């Protein structure tokens, strides 16, 4: 961001917060191995959800065909009781794992994100519930890839 914009934004709060939140940086967990995996199988191994069973209780709402892979809205809901996490993977992306969310008491296992897709691919969603992994997939066609632009 340039200096001009910097000056115009509501930054005072954010900057003060940055100082306060530094400890958070040290604490925050980010599964390097899973995100660096070049296949979804490896990514799922790193997430500890390698052998997931297919489930019709995981709903993936997304367009069948995306005009531009730079933004592909994907909405995921798990109706499996006791779902504690949802991971979203785009099989054919250079790094398939897009995001993983942990849901604690007070949150419902639902999330909507915009993902980049390099090409037409299956989108795989893996849910954890009661210590077991479940999964569902949906193909999304992409007419213009969205990783490089």
């Amino acid at each position: 961001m340039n200096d001009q914009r910097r000056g115009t934004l509501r930054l005072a709060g954010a900057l003060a917060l940055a100082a306060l939140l530094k400890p958070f940086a040290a604490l925050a967990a980010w599964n390097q191995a899973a995100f660096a995996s070049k296949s979804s199988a490896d990514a799922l191994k790193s997430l500890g959800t390698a052998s997931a069973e297919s489930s019709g209780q995981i709903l993936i709402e997304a367009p069948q065909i995306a005009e531009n892979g730079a933004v592909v809205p994907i909405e995921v809901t798990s109706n499996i009781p006791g779902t504690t996490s949802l991971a979203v993977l785009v099989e054919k992306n250079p790094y398939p794992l897009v995001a993983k969310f942990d849901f604690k008491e007070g949150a419902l296992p639902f999330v909507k994100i915009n993902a980049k897709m390099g090409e037409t691919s299956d989108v795989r969603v893996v849910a954890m519930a009661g210590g077991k992994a479940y999964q569902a997939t949906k193909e999304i066609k992409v007419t213009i890839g969205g990783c490089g632009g």
Partner: protein
Amino acid sequence: MRAIIGSAALALAMAPAWAQESQFADYQKRTAEASPVELFELIGEDLWKKKQGPNNVSLERCDLGKGPGVLKGAHAALPRYFKDTDRVMDTETRILHCMMTLQGRSREEALKRPFGDASQPSEMEYLSAYVAGHSRGFKMTPGTKHPKEKAAYELGKKLFTVRTGLWDFSCTSCHGTEGKRIRMSELPVLSDPKAARPLMATWPAYRVSNSTFKTMQWRINNCYRQMRTPEPVWGSETVNAMNMFLTVTAQGATYRGPGTKR
């Protein structure tokens, strides 16, 4: 089940003709629902209220045609003729006018970077987002009565069909026949109100393919670039007349932007 089919049929019947066939209708609806476009209005608000220029004042007293400081419905009533400049101006041209007259900035400085990119959108783009956002729900009523407004419409209409540039294109080369596609993108026939209305009601817009906010000045400039012409001057009579022609063709539509485009 029958009820569901019925309502789907109704939705289709209500959609503009060219949108009916669009295989991307679902994609476009979903991206619009999940668009970051509001962020641009938010940053635009900060810039609108920021004291700038030699006069160190904000743009809050800018007269966009509804009186100094009135934003509500202003964008939806543009382009129109302004007596103080004796010319037809669109939202962006008028914002520039306020930067120069209120803030005392030079045209060169204020227009140093009229079009931004994803990593650094331009001040004008943010401001347009903020201004346009105040017209949501307003009917689009560009000026059609003053002789210069009429002349701008006529010029724009004519420009739409002029074959020019290295590759002999006119606007109608792409936007003149119903049901055509450039690559995978459906091409609206912009001289037809049923195509122009939904389109103009959602510009300016967050454009997914650019991953940033884009305005009508940019859209027209970018069409000419692809037509292999030299560059139209920002805010010139040519660009504003084209905008006038498209907006008058779309008049009566309810403004619901800033929108989200492919």
